[in-house]
């Protein structure tokens, strides 16, 4: 039998406490709210699974969930290939390496609400640089507060601007770890540039790319601040993503029960998709 050293548990304990206080206990409160109705004053009425049933049958939730998947899907489709392409075209040696890396890291250093505010001003039709250029100079009717299409184009562009760097930096880290001998061998074997990408670079980037996609999925699926500051969910409900809707229900309407049920379902979906994705991506390695 293997001897077990239980000392390790002792070292994990502080983390356990921390997680308990900032995640488990708040989460339990949410579970508590999700099955009750409250009108304040600490008075609660048992509702069972009613909020969950209501929510899963509500068109409003379906619409927000649909928008959320559309948003996440679109930014993943743009950011992942774009990030890989940028990483591939960055220099791997020489004085430009640090310059490129810093330039890439810059957008990620900006606080989320600042990003929202920046893009808000940037796109204002009368004084914003982009808004003015589009409307006055190019003559394209572009107003985020009027057109849902313009609003979507703006939030997508903003997210791509803000987060493609993450994919770039992670892919780049994977790329620089490939020894020169691989490229030399491929040259000697007569491999085309596409084959070099397909059989050397992509396999070596796969692990970091998995992490990048996972992070981008979770982050974009839970996105709140940037979109809220930029569009506030409008025009109409066109950019009301799940998190924005959730806050509207919880703090706007103060429906704590339905909001709690929604958070739990929201959480379950994020967890499920992440798990599915991770399992699929790492399936081959386990063999």
């Amino acid at each position, binding site marked *: 039998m293997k001897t077990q050293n239980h000392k390790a548990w002792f070292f994990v304990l502080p983390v356990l406490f921390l997680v308990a206080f900032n995640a488990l206990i708040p989460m339990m409160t949410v579970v508590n709210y999700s099955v009750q109705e409250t009108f304040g004053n600490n008075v609660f009425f048992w509702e069972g699974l009613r909020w969950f049933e209501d929510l899963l049958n509500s068109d409003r939730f379906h619409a927000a969930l649909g928008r959320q998947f559309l948003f996440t899907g679109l930014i993943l489709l743009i950011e992942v290939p774009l990030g890989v392409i940028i990483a591939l075209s960055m220099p791997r040696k020489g004085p430009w390496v640090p310059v490129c890396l810093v330039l890439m890291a810059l957008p990620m250093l900006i606080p989320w609400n600042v990003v929202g505010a920046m893009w808000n001003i940037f796109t204002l039709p009368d004084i914003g640089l982009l808004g003015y250029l589009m409307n006055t100079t190019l003559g394209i009717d572009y107003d985020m507060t009027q057109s849902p299409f313009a609003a979507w184009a703006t939030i997508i562009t903003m997210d791509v601007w803000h987060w493609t760097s993450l994919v770039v930096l992670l892919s780049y880290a994977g790329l620089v770890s490939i*020894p020169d*001998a*691989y490229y*030399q*061998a491929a*040259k*000697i*074997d*007569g*491999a*085309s540039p596409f*084959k070099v990408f397909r*059989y*050397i670079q992509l*396999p*070596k980037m796969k692990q970091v790319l998995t992490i990048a996609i996972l992070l981008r999925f979770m982050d974009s699926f839970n996105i709140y601040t940037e979109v809220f500051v930029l569009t506030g969910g409008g025009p109409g409900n066109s950019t009301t993503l799940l998190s924005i809707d959730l806050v509207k229900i919880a703090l706007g309407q103060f429906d704590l029960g339905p909001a709690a049920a929604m958070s739990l379902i929201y959480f379950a979906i994020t967890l499920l998709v992440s798990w599915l994705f991770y399992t699929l991506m790492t399936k081959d390695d386990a*063999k």
Partner: protein
Amino acid sequence: MAKITLSKLRHSYMPNPTSADDYALKEIDLDWSDGGAYALLGPSGCGKSTLLNIISGLLIPSEGQVLFDGKDVTALPPDQRNIAQVFQFPVIYDTMTVFDNLAFPLRNRGVDETRVTARVSEIATMLEVTDLLRTKAAGLSPDNKQKISMGRGLVRDDVNVVMFDEPLTVIDPHLKWKLRSKLKELHQKVRATMIYVTHDQTEALTFADQVVVMQDGEVVQIGTPVELFERPAHTFVGHFIGSPGMNVLAAEMRDGGAFLGGHHVALEGTVTTSTGAPQIGIRPEFVKISDAGLPATVRKVSDVGRHSVVEAMVGDISVKAVTEGAVPEQGAAIHLKFQQDQTRLYRDGWLATEGAVS
């Protein structure tokens, strides 16, 4: 397959080399005949990998030409030279099976699939990896991975030369020996020109018919393992090859003879060069402890298994001798006898005596 000629080859990694020290390779003129097994031997940083990369086309030399069968290929990229190279660390395509790995160089050149299958199974049999063909290459052990990279080099039957860049570095010692004999065997089967780069003399001497010894970007000697051992053209070769290496002893030239610590030493033949710092070179295997000869004091005796290495001082010069059987005590006064036909004079490092006519 082809004869490879290197003509007046020089290479510097600097954009504007001025002195000789700026060159990683200093003027190399070499002929590698078709189907030979060559080893490129030298310490780390002597330019052997640079030379290899120039032959394979991964590097374009600063000066000089590379000719394959008389055709200038200096400016051709690696894939147009029909060469194969096996690297220090096994390079395999992780996502492919062993079969696809071996087939890769052929498929890239549009060889038809029946021919690919035939070649791959032939090579797999040679390397004894037939039962691995369907497995993914990523999970293989390092020695099998290295076998696959060798296989990728051998799979094309039209290769001009197969080059090995210290291919056994990451292999476990007991498998090293196996792979080494496998390589030798492969060379006899495929008869392609092979160049094997290493800093390990055992690897070089067991693999090659001809060994090229390099130092500081220069070729110091080319010869069979026996020639290198018996008649090193340069003190470096003497020192680098053999264990322990050749005794290189500062000598004094006067009255037409060589003197070591004041005692006359008979040389193998006529001295051909009259300038340069004189040194006597003799392998420890040819220094005998006897009743007469140079008087010496034993400083150290090391038992290295089959024989013992006796280190003795002639004045303040240390001489090593290999002896079998009884060894003298430390501190004992002995006499050393140099076998005359193996005692050579070197001047400024280069051999300066004529061999005894045999």
